[in-house]
């Protein structure tokens, strides 16, 4: 029977017309610049922009051998791992607690989802207001407790500040997914475990947490992508990559080398490396999606 194939409209011309706007925008603003980035990544331009020459993979070699680049790679990894772990751990804790309470579920949810709507850059600024050494109230408290707090001069402290802001903003997103994940676990499984004599903590670690694994894994990828790319605003607004290069992530460096320092070839090579990273992350994400389709 024909029911397995998709029912369609017989029309030769219309579908192209429908696709045209998206394809046009995609071609002009995605494929053309992306190919330009790849093209420029193998060129070297002289300082005056007068002549260019083909240099093969030289730009890549130089970028990957540059201590500054390796530093920013390290910064990115530390920043991403810390942000993802903190944002997810807090969100999971809150989601499990929200799953437990009977009264006020809706209110808790409403009050916890705000930060999703806050722009990353503004999240950074909010934390900066609290923690900047000259006027931040919390900074004032920390300093009056005798701790030498100055994120504008101390690289580690700057990192703590941007990680806090980045993780803070991401809690609500993770919270919503963990709540959905918890709701999809059949209650009968938990009841069976209770009958089998597992206490509450044990039930969580042996039943609930393993069953949440798909959600957790998915969020891990999403949070990593977030920390890599969407946090540009936080860094630009809060630390500007500094102090020193202590908070210069890969994306910030592409921007900085391209727009501020105007090293086109290097910036393009960095863009291409970033592209490869995104493709890798997306591929991981889709393997996950595929698996879900199989079991779901």
């Amino acid at each position, binding site marked *: 029977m024909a029911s397995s194939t998709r029912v369609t409209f017989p029309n030769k011309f219309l579908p192209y017309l429908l696709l045209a706007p998206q394809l046009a925008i995609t071609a002009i603003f995605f494929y053309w610049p992306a190919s330009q980035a790849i093209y420029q990544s193998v060129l070297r331009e002289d300082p005056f922009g007068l002549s260019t020459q083909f240099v093969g993979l030289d730009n890549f070699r130089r970028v990957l051998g540059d201590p500054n680049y390796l530093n920013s790679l390290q910064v990115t990894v530390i920043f991403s791992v810390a942000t993802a772990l903190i944002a997810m751990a807090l969100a999971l804790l809150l989601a499990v607690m929200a799953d437990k309470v009977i009264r006020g579920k809706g209110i808790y949810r409403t009050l916890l989802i705000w930060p999703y709507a*806050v722009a990353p850059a503004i999240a950074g600024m909010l934390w900066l207001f609290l923690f900047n050494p000259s006027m931040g109230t919390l900074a004032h408290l920390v300093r009056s407790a005798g701790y030498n707090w100055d994120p504008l001069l101390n690289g580690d402290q700057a990192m703590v500040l941007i990680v806090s802001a980045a993780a803070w903003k991401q809690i609500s997103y993770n919270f919503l997914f963990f709540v959905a994940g918890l709701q999809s676990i059949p209650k009968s499984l938990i009841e069976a475990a209770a009958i089998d004599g597992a206490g509450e903590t044990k039930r969580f670690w042996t039943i609930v947490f393993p069953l949440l694994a798909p959600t957790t894994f998915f969020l891990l990828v999403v949070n990593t992508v977030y920390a890599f790319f969407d946090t540009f605003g936080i860094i630009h607004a809060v630390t500007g990559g500094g102090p020193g290069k202590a908070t210069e992530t890969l994306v910030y460096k592409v921007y900085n080398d391209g727009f501020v320092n105007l090293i086109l070839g290097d910036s393009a090579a960095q863009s291409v490396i970033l592209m490869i990273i995104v493709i890798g992350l997306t591929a991981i994400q889709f393997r996950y999606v595929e698996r879900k389709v199989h079991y779901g």
Partner: protein
Amino acid sequence: MIQNNPVGRLIAHVILIIGILIVAFPIYYTFVASTQTLQEILRPPLSLLPGGHFWENYSAALFGGVGRIGGVGVDRLLFNTLVMALGIAIGKICISILSAYAIVFFRFPGRMVFFWLIFITLMLPVEVRILPTYKIMVDLGLIDTYTGLILPLMASATATLLFRQFFMTIPGELVEAARVDGAGPWRFFKDILLPLSKTNIAALFVILFIYGWTQYLWPLLMTNRNDMSTIVIGLRKMISFADADTEWHLVMVTCILAILPPILVVVLMQRWFVRGLVETEK
């Protein structure tokens, strides 16, 4: 349902309340600061209760013009951001729903190629192609225009994929019934597909509105003129720790005004937003 003990529930409430404090405190603190005078803000610690300069500060920021951003009022920034967020949300929904419609309900040569071409854009966020994209915008004369702020962000694989996924759940019989009832592709789209997609559109709208409102890198590159700036960029320009003349009370007001509209959208459209978010990503 397993009975959990009252003590456990009490602890849960306490933890949730602490969570809410962490989540809400930075915003509340900024709100408090936005009702204080500049002198009070510069003399920490700040009081935990709002001060008495609410109207003064807000009207000054909204209609007075802020010196550091070339005397442009926050109202102008809010308007720019609103145009950008609405433009992106509506534009994205329109072009994605059309392309998803083409891909699901028609068979034509090159269908899968086009699908993959759209799909792969997922892997090309603006951050990885900053410079060349900027160059194209310059060449097209789109710097400091709404078109420049909106158009390039309108293409989205995510929205197309979401609509595609939803369209595939629509039974083939429904299409056939419509054809027997004399509805062509356009009538089917308008009378049946659009009304059925209502919830999806609403959910996507919330998410895309937030997406547009919170853009940072793109408006940073696309705008030079202060009066074309978005509120987030404007805010960034207003802040300087090195200069003594930063008008912190106005910064705080701007901050609250920048956060408020998207928060309202999220909270008021919570039902759709939560559904949309959890479904878009699956």
